[in-house]
Every structure is written in C-alpha cells, then in structure tokens.
C-alpha cells in the first residue's frame, strides 16, 4: 500500500503528460514514431473530437478489433504456430460461440476465459488474437477515463480530445515502454518467453487416474445402466507448458486484463514464479488505476480531490482485504469439528507457495481492479472469503478498478454522491463548478441500472431457466452447469455474471461455462457491461465539457476531505451495493451461516 502510494504521484504526473499532449522524457525517441503513425492513420493530432465522434471512433475501433480476434480464433488451424512448434497438441479451430465469447471478453478488458489456455489456444492466437487486446482494451479504458476527466476539467468546450491520439500516445508512451521492462523482469524471475514445444517430464511417482473408457471410434463406453465406464490409466509423464508467456503476463497485470496464458493463471509457477513476481504483479494491477486518480486531481486542478477519491478507494480495499483474510485464516468450522487442525486456515484451492494472506490479498486486488487474474481458486474460499471478491465486482470495479474503467466508474458514484448530498448544502448540486442536472443524473442512473440489469437479469435467467448442464451426479438436483447446488451453486452463477458484466473476468470456477448458452450470455454481459457503461459516461463527459464553470467559493460543494470520502464510500455502498444484498444473502451469506450448522454444498 505504501509503495502504491509512492508510485501514484510520479506515475500520475507522467500520465498527465501523456494524456494532455505534453512532451514526456521519451519524446526524443518516440516523437517521430508517434508523428509517423498519425500520418499513416491520416489523423490530424490537433483536431479534437466532440463526445459523439470520440465515442463513435471508440466503438468502431472495438468492433473492428473484436471481429479481427473472432476471425483469428476461428481460423486458428490455418494460421501459424498451431501445433507445429508446440508439437504435443494440435490446436483446432475454435467453436463460434467460444470464439465470440473470447473475442468479446478480450475486447472489453474482461478476459473471461471459458477455455484452457494451454490446451486450446495456439501461440499465434495467444499473441496476435488475445495479447493484442490486452493492450488495446486497456488503452481504450484509459482513453475514456481521460475523456471524462477532460469533460470535467474543461468548460464551454465542444470537444473532449481525440480518440486516435489518445490511443496512440497511451500505447507508445505508457503501455509499451513499461511492458518491455516489466516482461524482461518477469523473464528474470523465471517466466518462459519462447516458442518452444511443450516439454514433457517424467513423473517421479507414477499416478493412476480413472478416465472414461473409450471404444475404437473414441466414443465413451457405457454400461447397461447407461453410466460411463471408467478405467484405470497410468500417468507417467507430465506436459510442461512453454510459450511467449512473460510478455503476456506483463500487460495482463498492467492493463488489468487478467487473461492468463495457462488455465491456472497466476497460480501457475510459470505465470507467477516467485514472491517478488507475486508482489509486483499485484502492484502492477493497481499502478495505473491508482495513478489515474492523481491524474484526475492534476487535470481538474484540485489535487485534494484526486487524493480523496484515492482515499475512498483505499478504504474500501483495506476493509475487503482484512475481511477476506480473516475469513480464510479462520478456515472452515466443519474441519475443526472433525478434528482437522487448520493452522494455516482454509488452504483449499490455494497455492502452497502463496498461503492465506497473499491469496486473500491477490483475490481482493484482482476483483477490486477489474483484472481477474487469480492466484487461487475463489470458488474454494470460505463463504465470506468468497463474498469479498464477489462484492468487489458488484460494486462496479471501482476500487482502483480496471485501467480507466475504475476511474470513470468511480466518477459516476462521485456524481451521484454530489447530486444527492449536494442539495443538502442548499444549492443546485455542483461537481467542481459544474452543475449536475437532469441529463447527468439520467446517464449516471442508466449506468447503475444497466449494470444491475445485466448481472441480476442474466443470473436470473441462468438460475431460473431449465438446466443448461448435467444434473448433479449425486443428488440429481438441477445445477444449471454449476459444480455445486444450493447457495454455493447460486454464488457460482452470480459470480459468473457479475464478473462478466463488471469486465473482471475472474471466475468462481466451479461452473462449466464453456457451453453455447453460457458462452453467448457471458459475451453479451461483457459487452453490455463495457459499452452500455462507456456511452452514457461519454455523454456525461460531453455535457460537462459544454457547461459553464461556476467559480469555487465557500458555498461550493466540498469534494475533498474526510466528509467527502465518507460520503463517497456511503454512496458506493448504498447505491452500488445494496441492490445486490438480497442476492448475496441467498448465496454466500446463507452459505456462511449454514456452514456453521455443518451443511455443505
């Protein structure tokens, strides 16, 4: 936290230089490249766009890149690096629904992964189809945040910046330079960066697993009762992934993308080899979102306001970490009752290397920010421990949040807080000298409404419709594709759509999400959660930019100091979170209390 505090200011100042068209120290090197790019794109960097043009450019860019990735994934077996180099597994084309899901998910900075990276994606798809989006979607998020901040800072202005310029500058001056050094560092920590085939290692101990018996044509053999016949198979070798991992991890964290190269994500030794890499990855998730609050203060010439927003975020973060850590450290009362001593707390689903604290911390960070990388399995957390990540996502990913997305999401709550409480000082609510009127309230209300609709609506569809997955093998209860039934199964569904809508991308796992239905609905949720939020936000940016500035005075609404921080936290909790309380009560809360009665799911 201290280090985050330290890097916020310098990185914030640097962001201000990048986003406000000032010269950075990289200018001598990158300036010519930047200008050449503009000429190539036929963009006049001095011509600014109104909010509608800016939004249209952003939507166009997102659409084109999404279609591009969809095509890459569908045509994977015709493109380079599919199974030639990695040898072991020949990667086939990806099904339309999974390709749509993945393309939407990466375009929206969600990086929900319904596939197993190392088994499904070729190196080409990983690098060109997916990692590219890690940059693009992150840059789009930062650009939108910058446009909103400009809208707040400017007055009587028709423009909010130029999308293409923002996009280029964020890449050249921010993401690429940092990622190059960051990836190099990760390689030094032991993350592979190559195009080698997967290695095969001999196991020191042979293991025997049961796999379905298959006939000659690879169909599962069934017995007379229709059950799948299992047979023993001896496993003697282990396949070890290789590939261009480090470069993808760097941007995955920095850009709060979270889409892992391998399925186990940051729990995998090759994605997260050392305590130092673990720490740096956590730090890098928060780095840009945190610095953006400083950028906000700097741009609106009210640094105290920037710190107040940072303070509110930090406070919610700390409460989350402590709650999650406490719940995980306490472990499950059932195990105690059965005589199992959990000296380390609830270690189920956690990587031994990281332990409780680092897992709880990582889980809180990754869900506060809309990163979604995981170093432990959230599904296996205790109910309250799992409630924290779920709750964080449902708040709207505004605790530092996704790059850019966190800031603009938080600013929606700032606007709502200012509107509700602003009347109490006896004036038409003003945010930094701009009157908050019907239009802004309408758009801010729309954002909250759409997020709620997408999370609860899709979850209700999944929970209420007929089952989309096999019934529970033991109880035959409807599971709708979840591993568990009852409250925990419900939590899994709720988490899935919260994560998709919140553009987080982490999973409670425990849900068989790679089905056409889930792939499609989750993809829709990611798109709704991203673009139905951005468009109203850009409308607010445009409307605020055009407004007159009311000079600040003793009667102006204070947007710094403790009163404001508490007000902002209160608004986030009352407006952003209360909506989900009934649903949460049915999921993790009930499960928590049932756990103490010994009932498990």
């Amino acid at each position, binding site marked *: 936290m201290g280090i985050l505090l330290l890097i916020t200011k310098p990185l914030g100042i640097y962001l201000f230089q990048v986003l406000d068209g000032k010269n950075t120290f990289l200018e001598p090197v990158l300036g010519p490249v930047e200008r050449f790019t503009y000429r190539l794109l036929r963009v006049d960097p001095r011509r600014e766009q109104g909010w509608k043009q800016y939004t249209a450019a952003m939507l166009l860019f997102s659409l084109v890149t999404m279609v591009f990735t969809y095509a890459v994934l569908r045509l994977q077996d015709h493109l380079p690096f599919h199974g030639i180099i990695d040898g072991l597994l020949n990667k086939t084309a990806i099904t339309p629904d999974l390709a749509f899901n993945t393309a939407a998910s990466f375009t929206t900075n969600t990086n929900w992964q319904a596939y197993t990276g190392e088994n499904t994606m070729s190196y080409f798809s990983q690098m060109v189809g997916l990692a590219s989006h890690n940059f693009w979607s992150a840059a789009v998020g930062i650009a939108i945040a910058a446009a909103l901040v400009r809208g707040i800072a400017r007055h009587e202005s028709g423009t909010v910046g130029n999308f293409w310029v923002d996009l280029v500058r964020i890449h050249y001056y921010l993401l690429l330079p940092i990622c190059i050094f960051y990836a190099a560092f990760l390689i030094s920590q032991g993350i592979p960066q190559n195009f080698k085939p997967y290695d095969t290692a001999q196991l020191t101990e042979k293991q025997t697993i049961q796999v379905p018996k298959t006939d000659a044509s690879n169909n599962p053999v069934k017995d007379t009762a229709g059950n799948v016949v299992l047979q023993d198979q001896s496993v003697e070798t282990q396949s070890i992934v290789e590939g261009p991992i480090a470069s993808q991890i760097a941007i995955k964290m920095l850009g709060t993308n979270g889409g892992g190269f391998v399925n186990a994500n940051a729990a995998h030794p090759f994605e997260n080899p050392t305590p130092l890499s673990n720490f740096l990855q956590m730090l890098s998730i928060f780095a840009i979102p945190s610095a953006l609050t400083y950028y906000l203060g700097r741009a609106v010439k009210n640094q105290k306001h920037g710190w107040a927003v940072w303070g509110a975020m930090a406070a919610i973060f700390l409460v989350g970490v402590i709650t999650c850590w406490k719940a995980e450290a306490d472990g499950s009362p059932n195990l105690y009752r059965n005589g199992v001593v959990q000296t380390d707390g609830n270690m189920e689903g956690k990587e031994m290397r990281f332990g409780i604290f680092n897992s709880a911390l990582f889980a809180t960070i990754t869900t506060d920010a809309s990163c979604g990388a995981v170093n432990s399995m959230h599904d296996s957390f205790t109910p309250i421990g799992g409630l924290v990540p779920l709750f964080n996502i449902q708040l709207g990913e505004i605790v530092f949040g996704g790059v850019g997305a966190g800031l603009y999401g938080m600013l929606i709550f700032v606007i709502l807080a200012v509107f509700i*409480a602003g009347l109490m000082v006896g004036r*038409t609510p003003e945010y930094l000298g701009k009157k908050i009127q019907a239009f802004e309230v309408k758009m801010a209300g729309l954002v909250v409404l759409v997020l709620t609709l997408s999370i609860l609506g899709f979850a209700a569809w999944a929970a209420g419709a007929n089952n989309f997955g096999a019934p529970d093998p033991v109880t035959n209860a409807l599971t709708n594709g979840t591993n568990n039934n009852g*409250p925990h199964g419900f939590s899994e569904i709720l988490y899935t759509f919260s994560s998709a809508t919140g553009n987080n991308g982490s999973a409670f796992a425990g849900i068989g999400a790679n089905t056409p239905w889930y792939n499609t609905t989750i993809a829709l949720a990611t798109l709704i959660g991203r673009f139905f939020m951005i468009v109203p936000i850009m409308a607010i940016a445009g409307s605020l930019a055009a407004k007159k500035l009311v000079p600040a005075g003793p009667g102006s609404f204070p947007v710094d100091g403790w009163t404001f921080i508490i007000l902002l936290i209160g608004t986030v909790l009352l407006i952003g979170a209360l909506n989900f309380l009934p649903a949460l009560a049915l999921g993790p809360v009930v499960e928590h209390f049932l756990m103490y009665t010994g009932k498990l799911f």
Partner: protein
Amino acid sequence: MAAQSRSIFDPKIIVPAVGDAFKKLNPITMIRNPVMFVTEVGALVTTVEVFASQESKAFTGQISVWLWFTVLFANFAEAMAEGRGKAQANTLRASRTQTTANRVRDNGQTEQVSADQLRKGDVVRIIAGEAIPGDGEIIEGAATVDESAITGESAPVIREAGGDRSSVTGGTRVLSDEIKVRISANPGESFLDRMIGLVEGAKRQKTPNEIALTILLSALTIIFLLVCMTLLPFGKFSGVDFSPTVLIALLVCLIPTTIGGLLSAIGIAGIDRLVQKNVLAMSGRAVEAAGDVDVLLLDKTGTITLGNRQAVEFIPAPGVTAHELADAAQLSSLADETPEGRSIVVLAKQQEGIRGRELTQLSNAEFIPFTAQTRMSGVDLDGQSYRKGAADSVRAYVGGKFSSEIDAAVTAISSKGGTPLVVATKEKALGVIYLKDIVKGGLADRFERFRAMGIKTVMITGDNPLTAAAIAKEAGVDDFLAQATPEDKLAYIRREQTGGRLVAMTGDGTNDAPALAQADVGVAMNTGTQAAKEAGNMVDLDSNPTKLIEVVEIGKQLLMTRGALTTFSIANDVAKYFAIIPAMLLLAFPAIAPLNVMHLASPNSAILSAVIFNAVVIIALIPLALRGVQFRALGADALLRRNLLIYGLGGIIVPFIGIKIIDVIISALHLV
C-alpha cells in the same frame, strides 16, 4: 391575508386534505410520480393476494392495508401542501367579486361594462369607492388605493400617473380621488389570477432540480424492481419460494417512498413559505434559482440604510461656537420637513439644548425652500440670512471661498460616507453639519453569514465612490457599484453571469426592468411599475427590498429539505434489509437467525414492521417537509457535515429503532 402564518395542523386544511388523498389515488394522476405509482400497483396486487393466496389472510391483509396507507399518506402530504395554498387562493378569490367598469370610449364618453369584458388597451375611469376592475397603468390623475386584498397591509397607498408608482392591481379599491387607467391584462391573465394559480399550485411545473431528482428516484425504483423480480428465480434455484406479498413488501420498503411521497409537497410548501412572507414567485424555478444565487445586488437606500440620513455632529468654523452653529442650523431647518431637516432640529436640542421654536412665533421670518437650482434652504430672519446646503452651493453663496478648516471638515465627512451640509450666513460659513447614512441594524452580521455561504453582496448606490465605499465598509458588503445607472446595473449583472454566477436583485422603476429581466432572480416591488413587475420573476407585496435576503434563504431551505429527505430515504434501506431479508430466508434456512440483528419476533412481524415503519415515516416527516429543514447560514463544508450526520447517519439508525418498536407493539397485540 397572506401575512398571517398558518399552523401546520389547521383542521380547516387537514379535513379536505384527507378527502383529496383518496381522490389522488387515480392512477392517471399517480403516474406522474413513478415511486408512488409502483407502490399503488403493489398495494393493488397484495389486495388481490389476500383473496387469491394460500397464505395467512391476516398477514397479507395487513400488509395490503399498510401499503394503501403508504400511498394515502403520500397523497395526504401533497394535499396538505396544496391545501395551505388553496386557503390563500380562496381569500384572494373572494376579493375578485364581479365588478363593473366605466370604459372610456374614443369619443371620451363612458359606458358601463362588466369587468371580464375588458381587454388589454381599454381605458377605464375609476372614482372613489370603486374597485379597480383589472391590472393597469394610471394614465391620468392620482388616488389613494387600498391594496389590503393583495398585500394584507391596511394603510392605503398613493398611486399616480407617470413615474414609478403608476401601476394598479385589479381587485384593489380606490379610496379617494379619480383616476383613468389603461388596462394591461386580459381577464384570466391578471396579476390576481396568476397569484391564485400560483398559490393553488394548479399549473405547477416541476422545477429542474425536481426533475433531476425524479429521474434518480425512478432509476432506483426500476433497479429495486429488478432486484425483487430476480429474487423469484434465485429463490427457486436455492429451493426457497418467495410469496408475491413478501416480495412486494420488500420492494415498497426499498424504493425511496419517503422522498417520493414528499417530493411534491416540499416544492409546494417552498412556494407557500414565500407567499407567507408576502413574496409571490412566478414559478417554482425562480424559488430554486434563489437558492443558487451567488451575488446579491442590494439597493443602498431602503435595503442597507434606513431611507434617510441623520445629523450626528456639528463642526463649527474657527471663531464660531458650537452653540452658535447649532442655533443657525436649527433656524435654517425649521421649515425643512424632510427627515434630515428634522434630525438637525433634534440634534440641536440634544447637544446644545436649543429649544424648538414655533414657526408661528417667527412672524417676520421668510422661509426659503429647497430647490433643485439653489440646492439650499434656509430662512431670512430679522435682516439676517441663514442658509444650509451642499458645500458647492453654499460656497458660491458666501462668495466663493471657505476657510481651510471648513474645506477639511467637508472632505473628512465625505470620505466617511457622510453628507456634509454647510451652514452659513450671507457673510461667512459658520460650520458643517455631519449627516450620516444610518445602516440598518444586524445587516453586517447577516452579510457575514452570507459570505460564509459563498454569497457575495453588492451595494448599488447613486452616491459618489468615496461615500459609497465608506457605507459599504460600514454595512459589511463585499462590493459596491457607485453612481450606478440602470445601464451600469445591467452591465454588472451580465459580467457576473458570464463568470458563471447567478445574480439576484430588487427593483421597482421602469428603468430597472431590463436588469430585473436579466437577473436570475428579480424581485419587483409591488409599488413599482407594471413594467418592473413583468420583468421580474417575483413580486414582493410589502415592497421591502431587504426581503431579497429572506427569499434566498427560503430557496436554499427548499433545496436542503429535498436533499435531506432523499438522503434519509436512501439511508433507511439498510435497516429495512436487516428486517426483511432474514425474515424471508428464515423458514428455508433457519441457520440465518443471527442475521436478525434486531431480534424481531417472527418473520411475519418483521416484514409487517418494516412496511408499517415505511408508511408511518411519511406522516412523521410531513411537518418537516412543509416547514423545511432548519436553515443555517454555514459554509458548505460545515453544512454538509451537519446534514450528513443528521439525515445520513440518522437515516441509518432511526429505522432500526422504529422497526424494533413497531415489532414490539404488533407482537404485543398479536397482530401476526
């Protein structure tokens, strides 16, 4: 009529309001208020459930009854607010009796027509004892007019053709003399009609802040509708069946019914509070703008200072005693009936013990009245001439030269914001009288509070900059505009508005009209011209410019009340969740009992208590909504902290206590 304030619980208002509360159940009118509309639909569904569902009819029935009460209480609040206006409107209407008018034809003859046949541009003749048939401008004559029907002030006022006191209002009565009036409003559009419409709230349009708030409340309502609807499939998945009654109870408790129910009442009551101060706002928008005002333009005379100056000191010239000066000053002022003149006589008596002389005793005295040419007044007595007047005029009178001491005294007084009057005989100046503008008491304090709230006060005066600066300093205003012409005022307002500030001002003359129209809040004096009244967006019936300050306070209070009740309403949800959610889940998951932090007796009593609390809190807050939250002139920071503590934290804590108390009562009565 308007000056009397009404008790909030006047039975004359409460009784019809109860009836109106039922009339307002009409869904077509309800849909204007989305929050209460949803509540009404919920009440309707639960009523059907009483007969349709298998649940305990006693429980469903009680929920249903209390939901209806919730809607009725909200309607009642609105009806109460309107009722207060209606009572006032009725008094006004009574004064608008059918009158006949003497219309003057083009050929000069008059004809008798009914007042509602009069059109704009008609000329009527009104003689003593007749009612004025419509709004208009006096074009000939002068009269004393009883305007008590409009202002509540029983002392008659003088209205005359030309100048700034030429407008008359329909419904007032001419007491003496005869006037000719050109009618300026068609029937139904007159000032009185507008006033009635305003206080009745008949054509009430939502103000900008109200619209924004309604949007927020609607968004919250839709969100909670979603929350409750999705609970059905969620529950099914988890093996819990929620009954429609319980879901509707949850819904109504969560949607912001408190503010939704009181919102329109708050707005109407705000206008009503202005009316009680004898200020008429032409729209609710103007009242809201008053709360946002950043700059107050205050006329010096009448607003900041008492209307007249007073003599406070005699400064004798060298070789003249104070007694001699006072004596001469008194003599020269004997015939001066202006307040200034009288104050000189009083000062002479107080300081030098010079007794008042009777004019009749001085038979050989010739009094010289003040004229605009000489700018002096005085008396010629026993061959001696005494004069007092402006320094320049008296200097000319004594031959063009003052002693340096006199000159020094004159400059010193001017620089202190006072008016120097030089007293002289034909031969030489005797000394100077210090006339001082008396700043009204308590103003400096008031301006100080305005400053704390971020409102700038600007004094407008025709005085020279030196005098203006001194008075501005004494009164504690932030800025002044000296030697101000109407154009200067207009330019000043425009300049402030370009800087993003909202400006309020008062005015009465026709030449104030452009500035009044330009200002965001323009309060016209009722004594002013028709043009000024048309240009402003408020009219002060008492014609008291100081009231601008109160207008701003009422505007702020209106906004604060809305914000406070919104915060309270939203904060209330926390406790309601803790009452209802455990109750909903307790049957399916008994383990959740610890979540019942309030230890409510049973699931049904918990839900019923929350619903009852939700309804009762509306009634409990009606007085607050009508009276407005307490106004305090504090800076935004302090105000926010204070109100957040009361209405935010209070909004979280109060329902916990309230629901618990209701739960204890209903379980003691075995209602569920």
